[in-house]
């Protein structure tokens, strides 16, 4: 029986937009076990990104608790969050979010710089990860010299560079055609087989199919599990 790695307990997130309050999450609860591949589905604006950002320590909930490895992270300071984020979480975004001034290799090595890893290890690891996503030949290319699919593979490599326990992918195929999307998802599947916990946001049922189970969100709450 595998342990729980992430647990959201009645989480609320309310954004104050001037006069109006936006309730992005309204009592969201869910649990994810170590080594699972979970898809989060739901219509646009249902709070998927908000949820993933909080799991990834980018933000804290307005109410409720989030546990990562049994630790409550809902009240931590920004510097503690940055620490956990850097070590335990790998992010993959819809817009790839690579740094345009850096080469593929430097992009993949950057998260390690923020963990004060020495230069040699950084380059070695980044090298290995780029080989893993089959971009060994493109290491010294800048993002704008790569196709969308290739950029997303660089992003996958980058998400792995500090060997995180959890990889969060927010609509990783959203900007890709279905064929390149398929390739990217297959890489995520491969990572999962190697033991990484993967949480993937998507609103494409074909993509969600690759996950072991699906959490359906609507209006900031889970409405269905499948």
């Amino acid at each position, binding site marked *: 029986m595998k342990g729980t790695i992430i647990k959201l307990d009645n989480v609320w997130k309310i954004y104050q937009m001037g006069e109006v309050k936006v309730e992005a999450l309204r009592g969201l609860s869910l649990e994810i076990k170590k080594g699972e591949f979970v898809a989060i589905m739901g219509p646009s604006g249902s709070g998927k990104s908000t949820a993933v*950002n909080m799991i*990834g320590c*980018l*933000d804290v909930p307005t109410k409720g608790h989030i546990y990562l490895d049994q630790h409550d992270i809902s009240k931590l300071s*920004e*510097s503690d969050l*940055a*620490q956990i*984020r*850097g*070590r335990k979480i790998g*992010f993959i*975004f819809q817009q790839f*979010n*690579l*740094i345009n*001034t*850096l080469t593929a290799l430097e992009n993949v090595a*950057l*998260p390690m*710089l*923020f*963990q*004060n890893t020495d*230069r040699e290890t950084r380059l070695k690891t980044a090298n290995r990860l780029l080989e893993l996503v089959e971009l060994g030949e493109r290491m010294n290319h800048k993002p704008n010299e790569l196709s969308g699919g290739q950029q997303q593979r660089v992003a996958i490599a*980058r998400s792995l560079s*500090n060997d995180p326990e959890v990889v969060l992918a927010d609509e990783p195929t959203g900007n890709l055609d279905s064929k390149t999307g398929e390739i990217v998802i297959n890489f995520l599947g491969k990572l999962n087989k190697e033991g990484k916990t993967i949480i993937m946001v998507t609103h494409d049922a074909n993509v969600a199919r690759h996950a072991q189970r699906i959490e359906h969100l609507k209006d900031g709450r889970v409405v269905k599990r499948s």
Partner: protein
Amino acid sequence: MLKDYFIFSVKNLRNRKLRSWLTMIGIIIGITAVVSLIGMGQGLKTAISLQFGDLGTDKLAVQASGGFGPPGTAVVKPLTKDNLEKVKKVSGVKIAAGRLIKPGKIEHDDHAGFGYAASMPDGDARKLIEEAQNLEAESGRLLKDGDKGKVMLGSNLGEQDAGLGKQIVVGSKVLIEGGEFEVVGILKKLGSFILDNVVFMNEEDLRETLDVPQEDYDIIVIQVQQNADIAEVQQRVEKVMRSERDVKEGEEDFTVQTPQALLGQVNSILFGVQLFVYIIAGISILVGGIGIMNTMFTSVLERTKEIGIMKSIGARNSSVFSLFFIESGMIGSIGGIIGAVFGVLFALGLAFIGKSLLGSDLIRAEISPWLVIGSVLGSFALGSLFGILPAIKAAKLSPVDALRYAK
């Protein structure tokens, strides 16, 4: 780690080359101005000290000055022979010499030039002047009592390229304000632009040739007796001069100064000029600093998304701060280095032009390593200082908001 941050910053600066350069211009101009002007000022001070240096501490100079009255009405009342005679009698005064220094025209070999003619007094007073001004003959001899129709020339006038046609040598004939004189001697170089271009002649000749009233003097040089207190002698001379010229204390139309005081005066004028220049340079540096701040704020705004990305992959606030802080510090120090190089070149160039065009040693550059090191460190500090606020702004961005920021 720091090294990697530096590399990252260099990349970012390179990526915005034009803007980086434009931002640096303010700092470059400011530092160029500071380095070259301090260098020149220091050189000028040294040059002046050198010239006044051997005048000794036992001499006083009396000069007529504007005196007391509404601005613009002041006409300098020249010193007189009577003044000189009275000063000679002041106790503690060993020798007093009256001198005339007048602008005039010199002609030779159908070429003309303008400069100063200075009179030499007779007797002991002549010795005093020769000693006070370090006059020695390079060729020929010095003037002596009774030399009529003779002149000795400052070293520049005897040079090949003095601009007066054929080189003037001992025995040459020159026209001073139309009157013919024979050159009996050419002086050794004194290192002073003024003195090295002066025509020296005996007092009588000068009065005749330049049409100076019999009574007038421009300056009275006093040698104080060995055991006398120079400050007391100065006070006594001032008192005598006041009654001679019928002015009240505090309304003097003359000054009695030691060469040291004169040097002090020159230095204080120099200081005033330098202060003015520093203020201008300071303003330009300040504007440069604000330029850096502006550029960095723009950069933070443009790179909001990038900051969000870096935070999402584990960058701490302090890391983000460092990245931007280093970048602005680097703009400052690169600007400072370029400015220092320009400043040194500028000062050396001016000194070179001064030397070759004017033959003047007054314009010289004295650049200490501390000046260069100081200005580079200073501009680094400046860049960092003005980078603090933008860097804090970058560090404080919320990761989620930064990531949502659309370019």
